């Protein structure tokens, strides 16, 4: 005859419901902090990244949904277990064991067993969800708005645009926005959000195990309790352990962190190149003695007139081009990470017991 305390086990069912509802908070967190990036817009480089970001947010939604279903179905099975024993005075062990034996055992995982005396439930995992922080500031606006002192003397900006037009660029600042525009600093924030969600899932796995072990203080010494214990060991590992959900979330956090830092470095380089152009233009005009003479020199003397300014302009275009190349590499790697997140979701779905 199995040892079965209905009240304790029913309390475990309630814990599963609480954890299931808590997962909705992770979704809300995702909506706020991952979703915010999806509502931005920017230039080509930024949009390439956003296209992948949108996919990862979708996959995250599937993951959360799968997690919720897992916990809900587990709760329903605990409910059924309680009812089955209540109806048969704790004799229905074979039937109950069949429910819990739905999955193959992992020989390396020990089943969750009864907790030691004095164990208590911890806080729900969402208690640990902090708002994400960003490691970087609004640098893109510095690059795109720094000409505010140039606009006081619009001819300087006009001259730089004329140099740009020699290279097929009609308006330098419009072109810069088209290429590198975007709230890149927000990507750093989202990196932090991914890491916080990684921590959430680790906590979820750990607290699931904790609360279930408390439940098993009311249900042990039987094949079905062991089968259920096997199930929860597996569920906890998939949700929060090594090889489970946390790793792909961590990888995404790393990627976003790298992207935000790299983009910052490119911005510094681009800002500096434009800045060098400004001083070179003034020096060239001063040297020529008049603006008209300087202009004539550009066209008759070609490069020998203002080689430094032209070189700075080429440097600027190279940097933008390099930034594009770097982002394409990042996007390529990104696709692999989304696949990993998808695989983790598949694992979650696989561990989910059939309903009812």
């Amino acid at each position: 005859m199995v040892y079965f305390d209905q009240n304790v086990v029913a309390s475990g069912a309630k814990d599963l419901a609480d954890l299931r509802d808590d997962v909705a908070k992770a979704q809300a967190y995702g909506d706020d902090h991952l979703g915010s990036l999806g509502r931005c817009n920017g230039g080509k480089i930024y949009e390439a990244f956003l296209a992948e970001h949108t996919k990862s947010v979708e996959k995250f939604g599937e993951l959360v949904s799968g997690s919720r279903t897992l916990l809900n179905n587990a709760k329903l099975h605990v409910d059924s277990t309680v009812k089955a024993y209540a109806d048969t005075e704790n004799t229905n062990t074979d039937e109950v064991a069949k429910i819990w034996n739905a999955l193959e055992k992992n020989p390396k995982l020990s089943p969750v067993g009864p907790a030691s005396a004095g164990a208590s439930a911890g806080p729900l995992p969402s208690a640990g969800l902090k708002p994400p922080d960003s490691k970087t500031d609004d640098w893109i606006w510095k690059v795109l708005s720094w000409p505010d002192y140039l606009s006081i003397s619009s001819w300087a900006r006009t001259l730089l645009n004329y140099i740009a037009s020699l290279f097929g660029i009609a308006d330098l600042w419009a072109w810069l926005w088209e290429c590198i525009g975007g709230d890149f600093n927000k990507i750093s924030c989202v990196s932090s959000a991914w890491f916080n969600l990684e921590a959430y899932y680790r906590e979820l796995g750990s607290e699931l195990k904790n609360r279930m072990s408390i439940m098993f203080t009311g249900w042990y010494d039987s094949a079905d309790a062991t089968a259920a214990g096997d199930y929860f060991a597996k569920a906890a590992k998939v949700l929060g352990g090594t090889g489970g959900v946390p790793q792909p979330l961590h990888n995404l956090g790393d990627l976003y962190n790298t992207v935000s830092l790299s983009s910052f470095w490119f911005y510094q380089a681009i800002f500096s190149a434009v800045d060098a152009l400004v001083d070179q233009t003034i020096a060239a005009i001063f040297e020529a003695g008049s603006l008209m003479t300087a202009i004539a020199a550009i066209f008759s003397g070609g490069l020998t007139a203002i080689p430094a300014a032209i070189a700075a302009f080429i440097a600027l275009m190279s940097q933008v081009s390099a930034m594009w190349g770097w982002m394409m590499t990042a996007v390529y790697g990104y696709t692999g990470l989304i696949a990993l997140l998808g695989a983790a979701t598949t694992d979650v779905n696989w561990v989910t017991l059939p309903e009812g």
Partner: protein
Amino acid sequence: MGTPDMNPLAAKMLGGADFRKQLKRQLEEAAAKTDDPAYRARLLEVAEGKRPLRTLMADPGFLDQMGLRGREAERQFDETMQQRIREALQDPNSIWHGTPDEVRERVRSRLEDMGVTIPDTEELKALYCDAERLGAQAGSIIRQERLTGWGGTEERLAERDAQQAGKSDTD
């Protein structure tokens, strides 16, 4: 005694310390030539690196000296630039003729022949703090100068314009 305060890479590409000394001399010469005391003082400050070189771009004294002050000058500048660019793009012998990619390649190889190096990412990144400082400083100085009409330079130039307009009326 200092030398002009400007983007270090810009200075380096223009000839480094020699260039700065030459520019300093040119600024001092310009200061000696002008009869506007406020503009003279500013030129000397730029020469000694006490105010960034780029503040000149908004300095009415500089604009006047370079032939860029006023609507008419700006209009002429635009017209000339547009015409020159049109001609260059159409002239098969011009270095600016061709598709943007062709132009870029030709320019790059010509620069190489001339021994002008194009700065790379690391070199540019290293400049960032200087660039930021120069921009912020120049912006703040320009805003302040505008409040006083550049120490009276604007008023003096307006008077001179009025006098010249008066002369041509009586011709």
